[in-house]
């Protein structure tokens, strides 16, 4: 069924009885050409592009719980392409371009809102770094603009630019950045994939791989063995657990990141702002809640919940830049487990096992990557060559010294 304004009116007049499910609920077949493990944003996008761009049929997505219950439904929904390094920026810009056409492409309202992202500058050194970053963005075809404090005050009149401790000296804006309704991304890709014949199988956990003579022949699941020509792992925070079943140790630690939402208030923040003197970023959802977050908790965790010291730290950052935040009540906080890689950048690559591929290491920034990650992973799975924007995302970069370390932190995942 095509969604349209006409359809909404028709359904409204007929009691909304005609919508039907957006994807089929089916049992797994005994084998597929392509199995994608993980029904998060990346896994569903991969399946969608495998079918749509590469014309593949006999594709399945296996999800252990329900689709969208992982990080794709837990993130703070920010999209942007304001990266610095060559290995990253073309990829994230490709992703932002895909976001721009996503809703038309999927015929699904993902609420892509290019409300802009503004990184505030608080010191001369930070301004130099942001000018350099802005130039790198422009060189890669992205948009970037250095804003003066006067320009910033037009959109954010309440910011205290003369703050004695953290004066605001300007900001780097990416006007094409913004937010997207995260669940709708999972649902939209799922529906699009399903319409092209992809089987989306929920409550089906992959428990092992069948590997013979260095070749992956399929996966063991809680719903039995399923054969496959090619298997693509795409399980974000569970990457190390899953790949251990193929005797792999990954350059990844799993950490928890928390996020917060306040009670709904009248329109306040037109776009996304980030505080440059502490770790705090904030946007306002369409329902009015202030959605914000900061640092990861900093220790290995699979618990999907964080601890109080980071809540305190994030709220302190918020009070430093938006003191009015103290008047709003915190409505909810939650956590997600993330695949923090050793250089802060992702991996989309083959493995030592033929027919087994890996996508992970997205850290806290993989939501914005969803379309490009799916596209590039589908490209790799279908053609056995990396997509042109993802050639640097290889496992061997750690051995060859070709790290993509945006922050220059070294092999310390909790600092990226």
């Amino acid at each position, binding site marked *: 069924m095509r969604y349209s304004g006409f359809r909404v009116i028709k359904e409204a007049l007929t009691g909304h009885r005609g919508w039907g499910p957006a994807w089929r609920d089916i049992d797994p077949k005994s084998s597929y050409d392509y199995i994608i493990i993980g029904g998060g944003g990346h896994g569903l996008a991969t399946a969608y592009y495998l079918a749509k761009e590469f014309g593949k049929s006999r594709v399945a997505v296996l999800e252990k719980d329900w689709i969208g219950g992982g990080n794709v439904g837990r993130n703070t929904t920010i999209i942007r392409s304001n990266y610095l390094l060559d290995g990253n920026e073309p990829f994230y810009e490709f992703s932002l371009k895909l976001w721009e056409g996503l809703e038309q492409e999927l015929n699904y309202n993902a609420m892509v809102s290019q409300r802009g992202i503004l990184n505030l500058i608080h010191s001369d050194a930070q301004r130099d770094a942001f000018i350099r970053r802005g130039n790198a963005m422009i060189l890669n075809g992205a948009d970037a603009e250095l804003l003066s404090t006067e320009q910033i005050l037009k959109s954010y009149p309440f910011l205290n630019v003369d703050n004695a401790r953290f004066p605001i000296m300007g900001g780097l804006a990416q006007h094409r950045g913004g937010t997207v309704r995260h669940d709708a991304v999972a649902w939209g890709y799922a529906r699009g994939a399903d319409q092209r014949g992809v089987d989306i199988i929920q409550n089906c956990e992959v428990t092992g791989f069948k590997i013979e003579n260095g070749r992956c022949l399929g996966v063991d699941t809680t719903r039995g063995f399923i054969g496959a020509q090619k298997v693509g792992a795409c399980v974000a925070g569970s990457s190390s*657990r899953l790949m251990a079943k193929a005797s792999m140790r*990954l350059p990844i630690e799993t950490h928890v990141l928390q996020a917060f939402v306040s009670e709904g208030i009248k329109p306040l923040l037109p776009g996304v702002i980030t505080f440059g003197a502490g770790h705090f970023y904030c946007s306002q959802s369409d329902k009015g809640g202030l959605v914000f977050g900061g640092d990861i908790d900093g220790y290995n965790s699979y618990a999907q919940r964080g601890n109080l010291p980071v809540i305190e730290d994030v709220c302190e950052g918020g009070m430093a830049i938006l003191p009015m935040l103290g008047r709003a009540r915190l409505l909810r906080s939650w956590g997600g487990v993330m695949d923090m890689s050793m250089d802060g950048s992702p991996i989309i690559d083959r493995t030592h096992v033929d027919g087994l591929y890996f996508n992970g290491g997205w850290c806290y920034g993989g939501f914005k990557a969803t379309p490009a990650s799916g596209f590039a992973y589908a490209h790799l799975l279908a053609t056995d060559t990396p997509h042109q924007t993802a050639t640097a995302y290889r496992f061997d970069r750690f051995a060859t010294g070709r790290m993509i370390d945006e922050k220059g932190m070294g092999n310390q995942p909790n600092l990226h």
Partner: protein
Amino acid sequence: MLINHPILGPRDASEFVYLGDANLIHRPDWQAEDALAQFTKYGYLRDNPAGEHRELWFHEQGDRSWLIVTRNTLTHEISKVEMARDVASAEGRSK
């Protein structure tokens, strides 16, 4: 999280800095034939288990000692805290 420091008693985890897997105290031999491969594994690959994890915490805002904390990454429950120094010397490392 409270970390029961063997000398100082229970301390809030926020006094500590987290480094990672306690296997990091087993630095490879730089003179070994395959030192490069060993250091690549040492520097970049991790077990990253879901469940019991032995890990290094540095008491930066305290007595500045390194601890090996055994903690469950699924529940955050801490079952054992040792001085890294004691573990290393029991293994015959730093004398």
